[in-house]
């Protein structure tokens, strides 16, 4: 594939036109409009892609202004064109063919002038976007309902609207050999951790791939602990969340073509934060926060502890309960671990089909799932009711921490298997291994559990619970060299 880097425009107008026609000979979307500059004989060519440009802008600001230009001097050149003729807020001059290609492929219009080895690229982007909608996975009861869309420029504008400060920095880069996707590093100059910024830029620059279609491509390339169950890069579709994270000294990476913006560094405690924690009263939010921690623990532990207690440690169970379990389990042909894994699998299948099926099928699916799994399997003695209850409870509590759904799934299974092999000893061994692995994780050089290590009241203000905004006067201290105080511009 030829990227035409190094190739420059020539003086010959026709030759330049032929070059672009040759490059896009198999692309019928390219439009070439040739016109004269006013009443002179000087020719212009407007190159743009149909559907990518704002048609009326091209017509009115470019073509019309060129065609109706008056008193065009004999020595009119590209400078005259850019300064005196064209109505446009943003235009650039270039000799490089690669630059022109990049511009017109991005929705700009290239203006080639006769007898000039330079061309103008004018911003006429007019592709359609989805518009501002509330993200479906990040709904809130109270608070802003804006969401990003696929156009990075609009997303950046939304962020800028939240942070109207000259401290906001937006640096652009291109990724993907074929897609040349625009990405933007967004951060607040006075708050950002420069070491993190250098590190993330270095990692992104080393990415070598033909196309970046979503921010997750970048996440998987640059994340620490590549095989860890826990995510070390945050993501969101909400501009208010991005603004809040930038105010804590994080770096946001906006990727063109996707509404999902990623942020670094990302800490373990963020998995338990909800978007609306900061829009509700702190007491209400604290209850939700504490519940999420509890539900995470319950979600991974309930099946494992149930298996351990009913197969290895029955002396720990009250006799009446033991008799009930024994009675309800009698006749079930499978060992407890097989029952548990089958139920987990069934629930995951139901969840996935529920997500991806049309709404009209949703009701039928829930009836099938409920009746088949809930009632029929138990009555047919394929599954036992206590195990079904344990797994259902585990699945329901797992929904409280959507950011950890992948980790919860794997942890639940591994803990259940360990419990079936060694009882509570196996459970504790695997929990210890998980704890060690979590403590070992870093996110762009920052400790993943930095907010939980060396606990102090200041650090705990926004972890297991949230204190009032009145008392959250300092930023989190994982970024060591930033202004800590939220209220005044002092350290």
């Amino acid at each position: 594939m030829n990227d035409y880097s190094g190739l420059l425009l020539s003086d010959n107008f026709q030759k330049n036109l032929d070059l672009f026609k040759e490059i896009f000979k198999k692309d019928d979307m390219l439009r070439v409009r040739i016109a004269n500059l006013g009443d002179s004989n000087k020719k212009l060519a407007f190159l743009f892609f149909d559907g990518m440009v704002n048609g009326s802008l091209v017509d009115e600001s470019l073509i019309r202004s060129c065609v109706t230009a008056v008193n065009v001097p004999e020595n009119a050149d590209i400078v005259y064109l850019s300064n005196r003729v064209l109505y446009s807020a943003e235009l650039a001059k270039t000799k490089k063919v690669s630059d022109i290609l990049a511009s017109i492929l991005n929705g700009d219009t290239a203006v080639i002038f006769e007898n000039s080895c330079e061309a103008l690229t004018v911003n006429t982007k007019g592709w359609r976007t989805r518009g501002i909608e509330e993200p479906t996975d990040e709904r809130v009861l109270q608070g802003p309902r804006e969401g990003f869309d696929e156009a990075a420029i609009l997303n950046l504008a939304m962020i800028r609207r939240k942070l109207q400060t000259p401290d906001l920095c937006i640096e652009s880069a291109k990724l993907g050999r074929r897609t040349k996707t625009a990405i933007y590093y967004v951060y607040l100059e006075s708050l950002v951790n420069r070491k993190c910024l250098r590190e993330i830029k270095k990692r992104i620059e080393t990415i070598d791939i033909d196309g970046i279609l979503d921010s997750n491509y970048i996440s998987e390339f640059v994340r620490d602990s590549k095989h860890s169950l826990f995510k070390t890069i945050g993501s969101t579709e909400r501009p208010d969340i991005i603004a809040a994270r930038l105010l804590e000294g994080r770096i946001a990476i906006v990727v063109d073509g996707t509404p999902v913006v990623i942020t670094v560094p990302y800490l373990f405690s963020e998995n338990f934060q909800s978007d609306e924690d900061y829009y509700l009263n702190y007491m209400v939010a604290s209850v939700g926060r504490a519940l999420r921690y509890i539900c995470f623990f319950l979600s991974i532990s309930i099946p494992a502890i149930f298996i351990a207690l009913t197969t290895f440690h029955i002396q720990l169970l009250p006799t009446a309960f033991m008799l009930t379990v024994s009675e309800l389990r009698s006749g079930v042909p499978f060992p407890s671990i097989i029952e548990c894994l089958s139920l987990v699998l069934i629930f995951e299948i139901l969840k996935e089909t529920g997500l991806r099926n049309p709404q009209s099928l949703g009701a039928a699916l829930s009836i099938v799932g409920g009746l088949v799994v809930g009632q029929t399997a138990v009555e047919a003695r394929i599954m036992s009711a206590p195990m079904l209850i344990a797994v259902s409870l585990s699945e329901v509590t797992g929904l409280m921490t959507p950011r950890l759904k992948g980790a919860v799934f794997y942890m639940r299974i591994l803990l259940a298997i360990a419990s079936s092999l060694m009882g509570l000893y196996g459970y504790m061994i695997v929990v210890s291994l998980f704890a060690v692995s979590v403590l070992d994780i870093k996110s762009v050089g920052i400790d993943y559990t930095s907010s939980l290590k060396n606990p102090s009241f200041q650090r705990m203000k926004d972890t297991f619970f949230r204190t009032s905004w009145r008392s959250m006067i300092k930023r989190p201290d994982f970024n060591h060299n930033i202004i800590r105080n939220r209220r005044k511009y002092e350290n």
Partner: protein
Amino acid sequence: MKIKLISLLCVVSLLMLCGCSGYREADNGYIVTAIGFDGNEDFKVSVEVVTAGGSELRSEPKSEVISGKGNSPMEAVFSLNSKISKNLVFDHCTALLIGKNLSGKKLEEVLKYGKEIKELNFAIDMFMCENAEDLLNESESVSVARGFDIAANLKETKSETGIDYQNKFYEIYMEYNAGKSYSFPYLKVKNERIIIDGESVFKENKEKAHFTNEEALLYSFIKNNNNGGKIFLGEEFADISHSHCSLNNGGEYTVNLSIKQKSKKFSKIFKKRVEKMLGKHKEELNFSSDKIKLKERDGI
């Protein structure tokens, strides 16, 4: 990275090597609630098992008594196992009954067997009765199983009388090993219900004394395992909140009592009662009445 992988491999191998020892499904065994040993010539073991309702949902669990015979406790349990299709699960066994006809070496064998088998809880309560199998068969259970009834009965008796029987298996085994006397609460069937009727005191695997409930309370004061209780003095009850017995260098026992009611006659009557009891069981108890002094301390 290499070290992490090797460590992970070691842990996984450890998990695999441990295999499934101790693994059993909840419905894969009969839950034993009481076990009893009898025997004149050979050993007879009787267990009360509680089974789940089976194929019917929400049916009541039921208990039944199964017996086995053998030349040793282990053989007897083995013959019992051969009669049933599932394993016996002892984790919820609350009572170990010893038949009166089991004494001497046979009792010693039972105690050793109890120590050796891992399934039996060391903190299980031990009881004495006339015949363990008859006791289990003749009585009706109030709750799910007779074993639970016996445990409930023991708890109730302890709280009413204040006697701490010290009849756990490990307590009795320790006393037996040290050559000291040990005692079991005595069970019998009354109106198809199991009740505790006194205490049997053993030494060197032979029954030395059988106390009534009241004597058992007095004995507990002297043995120092009492949290208070009521003693009937003929006209009134003396409500004792606390007692403590100590032995001084001169070989004298001093029993300190905290009495809730003020009673001038109490110390005289109490001493007489102790003397009467000691007279009855002088040799076994190794006490001498003239070496007991009572100190009264009036409580509130």
